[in-house]
């Protein structure tokens, strides 16, 4: 007899499909006109559907859908889930209310970042961690001595990101009333015999939502959104457009903007929350957490690095460029950059040695090797440390959101 329900693939046969397909694959592949794919967390995902400029433009002017399924997800449940997460991460989890989300990082003993991610409090003793890298062994080791269950649930959740100024209007047309939903809050709706949870979160720095459901509801949800959003020009976007948007928003990505402590091969590549200018999240009063002693010592002694936004002359993108002080001394490197169509500036995110991030930031230069018809054109361009995010529209946080 054949099983009628879809089964999970036999893990022993992984070699036949080195990259998995997400539950939205029938729709994403149909929309992928460039056939431009890249790996993400073991899945094949769209880098560009048809036109990078149009995709990015839709994020800032219409409504876009991005397939979030490969994001690594862990479920943390149990009587001591909050105590466990308080010891694991740097923020104070007891301040996170049921139905809320916060951004956080977690460190190793040396106070170096293992990963960053968002923490969803689904119920009193029920949390979900969303992050870029897999590190279940670390999460399980950290659970020793706590009454808590930790499991990876990446495959059990199908998620879409609906981002753009018209995203609220699309949801309204789709029958989801999220008018009162504030940023970093979530709420659940019945959908097609199942349920979809909508959180006001995202990675674009714009008005936007993330929709969470089970894989069996995935295609119905996609179709429902596209049917409702036609009038607002809803369209899928790939990772390339999202990367531009997140750079404008000043958000970081693990392994692009910092190397996680458990993966770094070179001793000097690891970064602390201070190095990444994320120390504002640390709750020093909540009790012990992983890396606390090391971070206290670093707070005392000072940090080597700072993470800053740069505004660079010209319009040539400065990805991975080296930063110089006075055109002579190396003082940092750029991890993300683009010419921003939104703010019309040449922007970048960068690691800069202290104090060149602030007190001595006057005389910074970026060396760009621009490939022009098989020859590098070497540019030395002036760079200014500036505020992040580069783009922060009021519509992002307005509640109720605007009906554009």
């Amino acid at each position, binding site marked *: 007899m054949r099983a009628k329900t879809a089964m999970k693939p036999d893990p022993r046969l992984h070699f036949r499909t080195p990259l998995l397909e997400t539950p939205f694959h029938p729709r994403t592949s149909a929309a992928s006109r460039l056939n431009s794919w890249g790996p993400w967390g073991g899945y094949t995902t769209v880098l560009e559907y048809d036109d990078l400029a149009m995709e990015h433009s839709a994020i800032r002017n219409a409504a876009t859908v991005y397939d979030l399924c490969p994001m690594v997800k862990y479920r943390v449940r149990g009587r001591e889930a909050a105590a466990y997460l308080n010891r694991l991460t740097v923020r104070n989890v007891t301040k996170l209310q049921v139905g809320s989300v916060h951004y956080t990082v977690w460190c190793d003993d040396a106070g170096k970042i293992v990963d960053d991610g968002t923490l969803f409090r689904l119920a009193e003793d029920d949390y979900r961690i969303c992050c870029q890298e897999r590190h279940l062994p670390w999460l399980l*080791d950290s659970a020793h001595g706590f009454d808590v269950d930790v499991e990876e649930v990446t495959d059990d959740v199908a998620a879409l990101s609906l981002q753009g100024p018209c995203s609220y209007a699309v949801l309204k047309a789709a029958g989801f009333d999220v008018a009162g939903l504030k940023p970093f809050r979530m709420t659940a709706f019945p959908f097609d015999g199942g349920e979809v949870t909508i959180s006001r979160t995202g990675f674009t720095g714009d008005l936007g939502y993330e929709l969470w459901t089970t894989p069996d509801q995935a295609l119905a949800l996609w179709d429902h959104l596209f049917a409702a959003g036609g009038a607002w020009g809803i369209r899928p976007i790939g990772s390339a457009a999202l990367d531009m948007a997140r750079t404008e928003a000043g958000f970081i990505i693990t392994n692009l903007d910092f190397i996680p402590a458990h993966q770094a091969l070179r001793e000097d590549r690891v970064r602390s929350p201070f190095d990444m200018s994320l120390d504002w999240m640390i709750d020093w009063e909540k009790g012990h957490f992983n890396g606390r002693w090391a971070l206290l010592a670093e707070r005392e002694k000072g940090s080597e690095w700072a993470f800053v936004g740069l505004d660079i002359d010209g319009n040539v993108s400065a990805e991975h460029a080296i930063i110089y002080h006075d055109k002579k001394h190396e003082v940092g490197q750029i991890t993300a950059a683009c010419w921003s169509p939104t703010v019309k500036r040449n922007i970048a995110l960068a690691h800069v040695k202290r104090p060149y991030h602030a007190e001595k930031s006057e005389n910074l230069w970026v060396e760009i090797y621009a490939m022009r018809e098989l020859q590098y054109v070497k540019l030395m361009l002036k760079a200014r440390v500036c505020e992040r995010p580069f783009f922060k529209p009021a519509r992002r946080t307005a509640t109720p959101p605007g009906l554009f």
Partner: protein
Amino acid sequence: MPSFDAIIIGGGTNGLACAARLQTSGRKVLVLESGGAPGGGALGAEFAPGYRAPGLAHLVNMLDARVETGMDLSRHGLTWAATDLSSTALSATGDHLVLEGAAGEWLTGAVSAEERQAWAALRTELMDFADVLAPFKALTPPRLARGVGNNVWQLGKLGLRTRMMGKDRFREFLRMLLINVHDVLNDELTDPRLKGLLAHDAVLGTWLGPRSPNSLIHLLNRFAGQVAGKRASLAVPAGGMGAVAAAMAASVTASGVTIRTGAAVAGLIVEGDRAVGVTLASGEALRAATIISAISPKATFLSLLGPRHLDTGFVNRIRHMKSRGGAAKLHLALKGRPDFRGADLRSRLVIAPDEQAVELAFNAVKYGEAPDRPVMEILLPSAFEGGHAPDGHHVLSAIVQFAPCRDAVGTDAIRKRYRNQTLAVLEDHAPGITGLIVGEELLLPADIEARYGMVGGNWHHGELSVEQMFFLRPVPGIAQYQGPVPGLWLAGAGCHPGGGISGAAGWNAAERIVREVRS
């Protein structure tokens, strides 16, 4: 309740040694002992009506000289029923071989002149190497970093002294340092009794067979010990093993230390980022600026402090610290004098027919089984003095290896089998001994853990193996007796240089505390 500068958790040998050294530095010290009397593994107890046996240790061979003289133990009642004990390699046919003096200075028994010569040469070499290692026992292990307060001068002196052996001997030292005892014995010796006894002594109290890598260093460690001023010597305290603990307790009490018995510590109090006190099982809270744990590191961090006050990586290291115990303790109440085919009962009796027998006994426990022919070290306290058993009766105390570890014991069947196999071996060497038994007690590693809090029943509070020695003991990062929580110190056998009735770890810890607070 008067206030104290330091609270020591655990009134065993190391806890008392630490208390003594700290008190002389001018601190007010409180020792908390969960049992009815201080002493831990050094205590004796009545196991059958009228018969008293040493709890775990039944000989003294590693008493730290600083402890012995610094605590003036002889003035506080420690005398010896016997010193310079011989060791007898028992033969099932009565053809015993006796190692006389310190570590077999000379041999008595039927043994060839060549073998005597070979042993003398090997013994000289082992004693020389033990001499090199001995001073390291009294040292705080260094940290592998610059500018972290290592005693560079002292380390340099010891390193230079080691190198001064000369090129050939230094090379030989390095070759021997991490080798297994089985290979060395077969390179140098031929007499199975001698090889059996030495192989047995090397793995006594370890989770190693003679063929396991690094097993020779345990023999060197043994030869680096001292008692009553004599290197590699064995001694039996008058009045039983409890006399050592009693003398230590009397010494610290006389110097002003307060000992509270029946005071089981349930947890540590952490405020801010400091350990500031302890809570007792009764709920009572006691506070002091310095909290010292002389109990097992695993119990200290995983139970008393708890993972939530520690970093995950550190907790992993503590969890992964190996602490398997392979030694069981057997106590027999005998209604008459056993006869080990004429062997002198005022000797340490060892049943280990050859080095192979020791390895075979270890093989079984690797797979969670009981060996067919356990090997053992036997002492009859009643042969040295009265008071241990009714007149004419005897008490036999034996360390029997290798006992199934905690995980294997779950059924009475394996315990029964281990007991029966042990008695069968004893009967072969002392015909009729089983008929003399009027009372008995067998402590398997699981029982030792339950009674003494030694995790896994390991009497070093964590296996003493090369990868858990010196700056790796108990785990990297806290090998200097400190932390990781400020205000918390370690002073137990789980620290360098390990266990035994020694007090070295406790004394070292106290030295470190005194130095740290001064600076």
